[in-house]
């Protein structure tokens, strides 16, 4: 019994770590740039496939891939905001309209990125084996790569949190998330901060993708499920709240792990029930303003 509980909890924490990463990314993009980026999962997919390609073709260690994949994915996100979303912001002045249109644009992006990947890599699942030996931990057995992923996710989350709270740029980002116009009046280059936030969001998704590829099989259609989960977590924690995403990610990972233990096919249904119930009771999320 105790062993089962330990298994379920650690399994939930591992998933929760990944969820927290991707949700913080989405939260950055929505909180500052006001874009509910539905193509978020596609950046996860890109990170996973870059890693797979680098590992199988050149034999590069997947952990090193984090460093290799991070800059191009950040730049991709940065450039997308600079070109597309910047223009959309100039075209639509009403903020409610901007949010709706930005979301539809990101749906368009999702179709484009996913299908380019599909043309390049096909639809069959891919995978590789990395650190696939087991470790005993309090009587329960876990594979080493999963524990590594959990540790890595926690480290990245912590580093990101410190960056937001301690650095000058982090301060600018937090100011922009509170009130973009006021922040701009205080001399913060708002378009640049928004593009950086969008880039960071893509970057966190990319890192999550690298980590996912170490423990699961990947395929070009994997993005959407993670997008949905990220949206659920972000709504759960409050749109735009970074600590909310962190807590929400781990909470959803644990809930998912428990539900999956009882009835695996109802995992997504449980997520939706949670999100819908929450939207109705507290639309601003647990830690939302």
């Amino acid at each position: 019994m105790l062993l089962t509980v330990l298994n379920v909890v650690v399994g939930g924490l591992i998933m929760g770590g990944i969820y927290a990463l991707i949700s913080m990314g989405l939260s950055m993009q929505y909180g500052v740039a006001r874009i509910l980026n539905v193509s978020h999962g596609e950046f996860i997919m890109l990170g996973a496939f870059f890693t797979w390609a680098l590992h199988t073709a050149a034999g590069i260690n997947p952990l090193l891939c984090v460093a290799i994949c991070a800059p191009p994915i950040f730049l991709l996100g940065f450039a997308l905001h600079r070109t597309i979303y910047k223009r959309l912001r100039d075209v639509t002045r009403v903020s409610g309209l901007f949010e709706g249109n930005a979301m539809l644009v990101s749906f368009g992006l999702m179709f484009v990125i996913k299908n380019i990947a599909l043309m390049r890599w096909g639809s069959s699942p891919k995978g590789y084996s990395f650190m696939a030996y087991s470790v005993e931990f309090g009587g329960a057995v876990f594979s080493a790569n999963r524990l590594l992923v959990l540790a890595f996710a926690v480290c990245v989350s912590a580093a990101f949190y410190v960056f937001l709270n301690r650095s000058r740029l982090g301060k600018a980002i937090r100011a922009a998330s509170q009130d973009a116009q006021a922040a701009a009046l205080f001399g913060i280059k708002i378009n640049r901060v928004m593009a950086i936030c969008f880039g960071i969001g893509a970057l966190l998704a990319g890192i999550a993708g690298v980590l996912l590829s170490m423990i699961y099989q990947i395929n070009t259609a994997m993005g959407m499920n993670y997008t949905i989960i990220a949206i659920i977590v972000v709504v759960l924690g409050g749109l735009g709240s970074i600590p909310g995403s962190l807590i929400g990610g781990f909470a959803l990972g644990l809930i998912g792990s428990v539900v999956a233990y009882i009835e695996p096919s109802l995992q997504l249904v449980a997520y939706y029930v949670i999100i819908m119930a929450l939207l109705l009771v507290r639309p601003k999320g647990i830690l939302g303003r």
Partner: protein
Amino acid sequence: MGNPGLRLDMKKSVPFAIVAAALAAVAFLPRFASAYSVVFCSSVIMYAALSLSYAMFSGPTGYVSLATAAFFGVGIYTSAFFGKSLPLPALMIAGGVFSSVIAFAVGAITLRLRGVYFTIFTFGLVELLKHFVLWTETTFAGTRGRTVASFGSVTVFYCMLALLTALLLAAFLLRRSRVGKALSAIGESEDAAAHIGINTTAVKLLAFSLSSFAMGAAGAVMATRWAYIDPGIAFNSLMSFMPALMAIFGGTDRLLGPVAGAIVFAALEEQLITRFPSLYMIIFGAIMIAAILFMPSGVTGLIRRRPAKRKEDVPVGDS
């Protein structure tokens, strides 16, 4: 249509007559055209009906609803359950009624959500229904999919055409009615609309249920064209995006904008989807982005800008 009320003067009845003539001409299509083009035209009409019903609610209010696939899927499952015992028109009505009942229930609790929250919820509804139906089917019926009774492509064609005609009429009347004006007012400023005494919840709920009726009816008809359905086919989220994109591309300000968008994309899909499915989706996505960035009021918005000065000054939903 700047002038409310139902009086039709000569100038306004011309486009009305053109639309009626076009629909009548399409009605004779099965007599001359090949079986294949009848099937193709049914798809075009289906997309036109879906994007028109999307635009009916989302156009004036600005609430982006991605629940189209959910109501379409409810219609599909209506046909799957009752297809063997009911005639097609009855299935249409049943599908429509089921959809609007669900829309009413869902709308009653969600239409107080605004902006992206509402959109997330409607999108979640599709996935929730998909997984829920899949789970009930595998658990209680012991199967993944179902077979659907067929009624022949000509019957499907006429049912879809009747639906589109009714929908055009309904959308036309809705725009000129007090409810239509109220919807536009909500789209401009919901708080202001509430302040001047509009019961915003009731109005939104009415329009949302009405538009979902047509989606469910369309699903009930189209289901009979596929011999086999499963939750993945019935609740395909692409069916939420296509009507939205078609309506945005065509322009939701104008009654025929969504229809124009539907024709363009149905033709594009027909040309590309079987040969280059990935390429089609890339083009689809790219046009979606370009349409939002460069044509905020759609194709019909571009046309209107130049010669329309003498006809109407202020289109409904844009004023």
